[in-house]
């Protein structure tokens, strides 16, 4: 049975929630964490993460050289194309300078970036053992200092009146319950696992989206607060979406469902038509746009087609490749029109300007006279057997979120002044990331605003 009241109530069980809970507890508050998932699947999308981005003025922990506030800011500005709140972003960047120490003191360990990590060793600190090991350390520390964690506990609504947040309704193993608290930290993630909400934003196309992370991020409290005049940032159609193997399970496949073959392939939709330059840039710089590209195709499906020449040049999918001895057979295997695929392949092959093939650089193997072009690494699809990988949009998280101030306090409209509702993590990441993504920033937002929210919630509660 969950206690009927506490000082600080934390909703969610991921990185931001645990940082908030730890910070609030260390500030002297009684803290209850309510996690919708059970213990084995706790931690929301944090389970699928592996690093965070931190500025540093010199080598620190596993991070080499210098990554200055200004460089971080410029990186953020570039990916968001200005859709960011500069004071909050700079606050996050400055606070990121000491978060490695803060986490390390609480049991989190880092490792040098090893293989296949998109060359992030200067800017990003990798959690030893990944996100779930990070969570294990955070939960162990939180419980050691007296944070009370309850699993299988879904918060369904917050009661807010003139004096602010009063109590939360919880659907837990003991049934329905209300918990009073002096302050609340909302760290319950985005709404990407809420199919109805995704359909409101995307229409029927959302049926074909695969959710890369936790099925528990349903946006229940985000919507509940929106209905109580909380101010939001971002657009409901903005999300981090990558192209993943279409055979991945509907939820929670995380990193292993990715496909690394696009640069080596031509990608066609279900009508066997190409729709974007597969060789525009190196894959690590392009993988995050392909989710949206596939989402815009009929049926939200696409197929990367390769031949025997390149099949060993990339990390294979965890799912078997679909193979055939001829393009016509392959078309039948993947159920796209035979003649159309043959025509697409032959016009692509005919358009290739031969050059020196080199996957380490932006080489000069490209097409001429077709649209869309393939700007680099264009080789003929001519050597059987031929292979296909099906692709679908894989949604990492949504950007629509709660507007917060520099104390992580949620802003309410209609002139309402609510002092004791705070937000941290994905549910407010849209303040910083209005668009695009900068690897590791989500976790930085979680730690920085988790701490700020926890400290301020404790101060509010202990007044």
């Amino acid at each position, binding site marked *: 049975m969950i206690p009927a009241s506490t000082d600080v109530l934390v909703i969610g069980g991921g990185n931001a929630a645990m940082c908030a809970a730890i910070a609030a507890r260390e500030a002297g508050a009684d803290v209850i964490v309510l996690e919708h998932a059970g213990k*084995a*699947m706790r931690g929301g999308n944090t*389970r*699928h993460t*592996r690093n965070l981005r931190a500025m540093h003025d010199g080598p620190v922990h596993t991070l080499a050289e210098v990554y200055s506030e200004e460089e971080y800011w410029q990186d953020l500005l570039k990916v968001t194309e200005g859709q960011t709140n500069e004071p909050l972003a700079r606050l996050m960047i400055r606070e990121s300078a000491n978060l490695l120490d803060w986490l390390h003191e609480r049991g989190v*360990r880092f*490792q*040098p970036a*090893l*293989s*296949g990590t998109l060359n992030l060793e200067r800017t990003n600190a*990798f*959690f*030893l*053992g*990944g*996100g*779930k*090991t990070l969570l*294990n350390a955070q939960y*162990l520390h939180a419980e050691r200092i007296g944070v009370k964690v309850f699993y299988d506990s879904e918060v369904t609504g917050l009661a807010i009146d003139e004096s602010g947040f009063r109590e939360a309704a919880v659907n837990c193993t003991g049934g329905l319950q209300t918990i009073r608290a002096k302050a609340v930290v909302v760290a319950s993630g985005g709404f990407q696992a809420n199919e109805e909400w995704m359909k409101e934003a995307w229409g029927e196309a959302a049926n074909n989206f695969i959710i890369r992370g936790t099925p528990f991020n349903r946006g229940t409290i985000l919507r509940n607060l929106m209905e109580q005049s909380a101010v939001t940032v971002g657009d409901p159609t903005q999300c981090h979406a990558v192209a993943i193997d279409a055979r991945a*399970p509907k939820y*929670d*496949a*995380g*990193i*292993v469902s*990715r496909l690394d073959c696009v640069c080596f392939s031509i990608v066609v939709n279900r009508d066997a038509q190409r729709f974007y330059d597969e060789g525009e840039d190196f894959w690590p710089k392009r993988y995050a746009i392909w989710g949206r590209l596939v989402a815009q195709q009929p049926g939200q499906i696409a197929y990367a087609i390769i031949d025997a020449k390149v099949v*060993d040049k990339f*990390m*294979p*999918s*965890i799912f078997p490749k679909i193979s055939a001895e001829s393009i016509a057979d392959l078309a039948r295997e993947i159920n796209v029109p035979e003649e159309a695929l043959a025509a697409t392949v032959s016009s692509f092959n005919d358009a290739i300007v031969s050059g020196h093939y080199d996957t380490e650089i932006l080489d000069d193997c490209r097409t001429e006279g077709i649209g869309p072009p393939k700007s680099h690494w264009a080789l003929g699809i001519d050597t059987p057997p031929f292979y296909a990988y099906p692709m679908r949009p894989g949604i990492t998280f949504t950007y629509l979120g709660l507007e917060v101030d520099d104390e992580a306090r949620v802003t309410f409209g209609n002139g309402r002044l609510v002092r004791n509702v705070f937000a941290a993590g994905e549910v407010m990441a849209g303040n910083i990331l209005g668009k695009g993504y900068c690897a590791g920033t989500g976790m930085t937002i979680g730690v920085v605003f988790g701490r700020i929210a926890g400290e301020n919630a404790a101060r509010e509660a202990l007044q």
Partner: protein
Amino acid sequence: MEEEIQRSSLGEAERTMTICNACRYCEGLCATFQAMTLRRAFAETDLDYLANLCHNCTACYHGCQYAPPHYFDLNVPRTLASLRIDTYQRYAWPGFMARLFERNGLVVSIAIAVSLALIIVLLFAYQDPAVLFSQHTGPGAFYAVIAHYVMISVAGATFGFSVLAVVISCLRFWNSTKPGSKSKLSIGAWARALRNTATLKYLGGELGEGCSTEDERWSNRRRYFHQFTMWGFILCFASTCVATIYHYGFDIAAPYSLFSLPVLLGSVGGVGLLVGPAGQLWLKTRSDPRPANVSQYGMDYAFLASLFLISLTGMLLLALRETAAMGILLAIHLGFVLAFFVTLPYSKFVHAVYRFAALLRFGAEMRR
């Protein structure tokens, strides 16, 4: 049927490593994942190698985003442990003895019972009870109870066969790990392998802060107890070797004085073999069963218990060797020792040999 089980264990290992290699979040945890990242696909022999490189620390299970109840249902430690037992069988020499790895706890228990019974029955049949139950002191005291040539011929034959069987099995394993690896066996490779073995590095995690045993907390307890066992065994073995040199090289017969090298080595090693196996047994009863290959617990328990009992009877023999109890204690001690060496190539002992071979291959592959 047997073949089917082996194939399914390999199949599950291949499925698991394919998913792991697409994730790689664990690559900072241990050698197994670092060796994995050198490969794009996993042949049978690669999997055999990775399975024996795994020290079963279970940190990867507790840190796995795909562990059950996840749809992918990954259980790396259990999968590799289960394949490891398969490799003990597949590389075992002579092949028909491989079946002894099935119900290995029972096999070892019967071996102990039979050898104890055999020695005691033979003693009562052939030795004068007056000799057996009287006090013997001075050089050659043990041989008054059991003749030296009997002891040496039985020990020589069983130990000789066991060493041969272990060496052949290990070479078969070693050669099978070659094709998947572009490595060269340098002095550095040996040095890395010896260091990683001596420090049991991969029971301590990459940072030396320990591994998971009871739950997701890290602890070095298992590593420390295993150190007691490993060094205890090595010292006891060294004691026997020194004693052999004393006997044949310098014509000095056992028992040796309390401060002689064989007794000192044996006593320190004996303490290791009491503390280590007892601690490991205790930890095993407390360990999380989810990542464990519980069906091999019989083998593990039998091995640890027999090391403990060899040491216990050896220490009792040392303490009471000048009393009339010496004869019967010697018989009991030798009964445990005989059973241990008879079953050596078909017991948990082989993990040490395969693990070292895998660490040597790893040392050659990683060159750092």
